[in-house]
C-alpha cells in the first residue's frame, strides 16, 4: 500500500500505425490518486497530452468493469498488470508506489498485430470461434429448457470454462504466443454439456486447425496463461482439449 498521491514515470509504447516503427516514450505524471483505476490514470495522462498538443495514447477499453474483454496492456511485463484475476480496467493505482516507473506495452503476438500504440487486432479469436465454437441450432428449434437435464456439477464445469472473456492475455503471457487456453475454454464448455456432444469431434479438430492457421504458437505447458488469466480459466481445460483432440483424431481418422 502506498501514499494517497503518486508521482510516476510512464514508459509507453507509441506506434503511429500498423506499418510504422514503434518506440518507448517516457512521460512524467504527478499527483496520481491511489483511488484511480489504471485506465483512469491513462485518461488523466491523455488529457494532459492533448492540452500540451500531443496526440493521446490509443488503448482499447470499453466496459471498465472486467467483463467485456476489450482492455489489454502488458504492465511491467505482466498481462493485465500485477494483480491476479484482475483485468487492467479493474486494476487500481493503490497497487503502485510513489516514484515507480511503469512500463506499458501492447499484447505481443504475431497473430495480434499492433494497430496503433497499445491497440492490437484480436480478430483471429473471432475466426477461431467461427471454425466451430458453437452448437449448431437454429432459432426456434429448441425443446423445453428442462428437457435437457444438466447435472449441477457438469453445469459448474461448463460455467467455469465459459467465463473466458476473450481478452487474449493468455496469448500475450505465453512465450510461444499460444492460444490454447482460449480455445480449450470453449471446447471444454461445449464438450461437457449434452447440447454440444453431437459436434464435439468436428469442433475440436476445426478450432485447433484454425488456431494453427492463424499463427498462434504451440503449447508447452508452462501455465503462464493460467497465471495471467483475469477470468481464472484453468489449464485443466487444456488437458481436456488434448483428450478431445486425440479422441476426435482417432475416431475421424483425420
Amino acid at each position, binding site marked *: 500500500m502506498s501514499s494517497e498521491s503518486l508521482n510516476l514515470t510512464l514508459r509507453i509504447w507509441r506506434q503511429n500505425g500498423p506499418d510504422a516503427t514503434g518506440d518507448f516514450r517516457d512521460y512524467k505524471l504527478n499527483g496520481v490518486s491511489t483511488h484511480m483505476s489504471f485506465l483512469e490514470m491513462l485518461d*488523466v495522462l491523455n488529457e494532459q497530452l492533448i492540452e500540451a498538443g500531443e496526440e493521446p495514447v490509443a488503448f482499447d477499453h470499453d466496459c471498465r*468493469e472486467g467483463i467485456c474483454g*476489450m482492455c489489454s496492456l502488458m504492465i511491467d511485463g505482466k498481462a493485465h498488470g500485477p494483480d491476479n484475476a484482475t483485468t487492467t480496467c479493474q486494476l*487500481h493505482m493503490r497497487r503502485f508506489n510513489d516514484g515507480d516507473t511503469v512500463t506499458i506495452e501492447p499484447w505481443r503476438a504475431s497473430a495480434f498485430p499492433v494497430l496503433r500504440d497499445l491497440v492490437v487486432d484480436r480478430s483471429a479469436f*473471432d475466426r477461431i470461434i467461427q*471454425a466451430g465454437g*458453437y*452448437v449448431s441450432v437454429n432459432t426456434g428449434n*429448441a425443446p423445453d429448457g428442462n428437457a435437457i437435464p444438466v447435472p449441477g456439477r457438469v*453445469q459448474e464445469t461448463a460455467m467455469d470454462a465459459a467465463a473466458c472473456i476473450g481478452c487474449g492475455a493468455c496469448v500475450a503471457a505465453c512465450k510461444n504466443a499460444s492460444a490454447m487456453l482460449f480455445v480449450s475454454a470453449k471446447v471444454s464448455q461445449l464438450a461437457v454439456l449434452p447440447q454440444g456432444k453431437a459436434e464435439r469431434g468436428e469442433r475440436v479438430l476445426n478450432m485447433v486447425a484454425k488456431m494453427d492457421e492463424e499463427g498462434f504458437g504451440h503449447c508447452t505447458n508452462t501455465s503462464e496463461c493460467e497465471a495471467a488469466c483475469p477470468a481464472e480459466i484453468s489449464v485443466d481445460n487444456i488437458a481436456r482439449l488434448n483428450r478431445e483432440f486425440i479422441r476426435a483424431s482417432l475416431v475421424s481418422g483425420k
Partner: protein
Amino acid sequence: MVRVATDTLNSRVPEGPVDEIWDKHRFNMKLVNPANKRKFNVIVVGTGLAGGAAAASLAELGYNVKSFCFQDSPRRAHSIAAQGGINAAKNYPNDGDSIWRLFYDTVKGGDYRAREANVYRLAQVSNNIIDQCVSQGVPFAREYGGTLANRSFGGAQVSRTFYCRGQTGQQLLLGAYQAMMRQVQLGKVEVFARREMLELIVVDGVSRGIVVRNLTSGELETHTADAVVLCTGGYGNVYYLSTNAKGCNVTAAWRCHKRGAYFANPCYTQIHPTCIPVSGDYQSKLTLMSESLRNDGRVWVAKNIDDKRSPSEIPDEDRDYYLERRYPAFGNLVPRDVASRASKERCDAGFGVGESGLAVYLDFRDAILRDGEDAIRKKYGNLFHMYEKITAENPYKVPMKIYPAVHYTMGGLWVDYHLMSNLPGLFVLGEANFSDHGANRLGASALMQGLSDGYFVIPYTVGDHLAKAELPEIPHDHPACVAALQSAQDRIDKLLAVNGTRTVDSFHRALGHIMWEHCGMARSKAGLELAISQIRELREEFWKDVRVLGSGETLNQSLEKAGRVADFLEFGELMCIDALNREESCGGHFREEHQTPEGEAKRNDAEFSYVAAWEFHDVGAEPTLHKEQLSFPNVPPTTRSYK
C-alpha cells in the same frame, strides 16, 4: 408551448384479445418465399443481445446479413455486463407465475407508460428464449438433479429469473455471438467490426443503408441494403458517468432521428440504486453492484444526523432501515426507481455516509449471521470481490457503500408493433427502442427484451416489410448515398477544424453534470429550463473551443469521442424538452411539482397517458410532438404501491 402534431401515430397493433393477437398476426404477415430470401440484404447495426440475435436469426432464414459494431469484436457489446438474470414465465418453481402475471408485472412496473400489446408479446416469447439459450449451451444455473434453477429478483414476488452466476448477460451474449459466428462460417453474415455508424441513407422516405467510419483506417464506407435494423443500445452516457460501457453512445439513433425517425420518451431514464459511489473528479464510469444483493443486504443510514460512528458501532436501534420503514410489504426489494429516490431523499436530508455524504449502507451482517459467510460467498462472491477491488474495503466485514447511478434508458426511437420506426425499412430493437418498459424497467427484463426482439420478433416483421415494399437497386453513386457520405465527411472535417483549447472529455463531463443536476433523479420546471440554456451555451462553446488532434485518416479515439459528444450535446436538449413537457411523475421520471404528500410519484393519466414521439427540425429548433395514445384495457392503471 410545445408544437403538437394533429396526426395520430399508427402503432399497427392488431385488433383482438391481447393474448391472441401475436399468433394471429404472424399468420397475417406476408412471407418471403424461401428461395427469394437470399436476394435480400439486411444491415444490423450493433451486436449486443438484440443485434447478435437478429443477425443470427435473419441469416438462418436465408437473408444476407451485414453486421456492424464499434468494438474490436461483436462479443464485446455492453449486454455482456448484465449481471443478474433474465426473466421468463416458465413457472418451473410452481409458485403462481404465468405469462399473464409477467405481462401484468411489466406493465405495472413500467408505471403504465408501455404499450400493452408489445409487453404481452414479450411475456409470451420469454419462455422460448430460455429454451433457445439452453439449446445453444448457455450454462444456466441448475439444481442438483439437473433442472433449471430460478431466483426472485428486482421486486418480483415469484421466482422467475434464470441466471448464470453473476454473469448472465455475458453468457447470453456469447450464445448469440456464437450463433452469429456460425452464420459467418456459413457465409450468411459478414461482420464489420471497429465500424461506427455515422449516417442513415434514406431513399424516397425508405431506409436503405448506412454510412460508417472504419475506425482503424478512418475511411468512410457506404453500405446499402433492403432494410436497416438498429440495435445500438441506450444513451445513458449523456450523463457522462453511468454504468454503461465507455463507448456506449446515442450517435446511430440520433442520426436516424435527424433523418426523420421520431425519438420517443427520451426523458425516461433508469437510475439504478446499487452502484459504487463516485470517488473523485477523475472518475470515468460507475460500477453496478447487482440488485440481487438486495435479496440479502439491508439498506440503512444512521437515525441521528450527527452520528459519525463507524457502521459496526451503530446498534440496530440507532439505524434507520428506511426502505423497510417506508415500504413494509416490499422492504429492500422495492423497484429500482423507488429505491433510488429513497436514497437520494436520505442523502439530501443530510444522512448520507462516506466522505462525500452521497452514499448509504448496504449491509450483509444479518445475512452472514443467518446463513454463514460461505453461503453468501457462493451467491455473491464475484460481486464482493469486485467491490473490494474498487474500494479496498471488505464487504464481509463492513457494509458496502452504495449510491444510485444512471443505468438504463427506457426511451428510444419510436417503433410500431413490428418494431419498425416511422421511417419504413428502419427497424429498432432492444434498448435502442422505447416500447416495452414504459417509464421504468424491472430487473432482469432488459435481457429478455433484447433477445425477444432479436430472436422472435424481427425474423417475422422484417419479412413482412421486404415482401410488401418496392425496393429498387440503390447504387453507391445514388444522390442519397453521396449526400449521406458527404454529410459524415463534413462533420469530421468540422470537428478537426475547430482546433480549440478544451478536451472532448471536459465538455462531456460538463454536459453530464448539467444532466445529472437537472434531468436526473428529480426534475423541476425551473431546473429543466436552466439546463436547456446551459446545454445550448455548452454546445456553442464546444464548436468554438474543442480540441481534437490528429487526422481523420487514422485510428483516432479523440475524434470518435468528439463525434459522440457532439451528438449528446444535441440530444441532451431533447431529453430536457421531453422532461419539461411531461407534467407528471411516472416511473423513473420524477417531477418535483408532481408528488404526493409522502413524496411518492404522482401520475397524471388523464393528460399524459401517451408516448411522446419527437420529430426533429433543426439543431436548437423546437421539435414537433407526435402523440401515441396508450390504453390499458387489460391492466387498468392503479397507483403503484409497494407499501
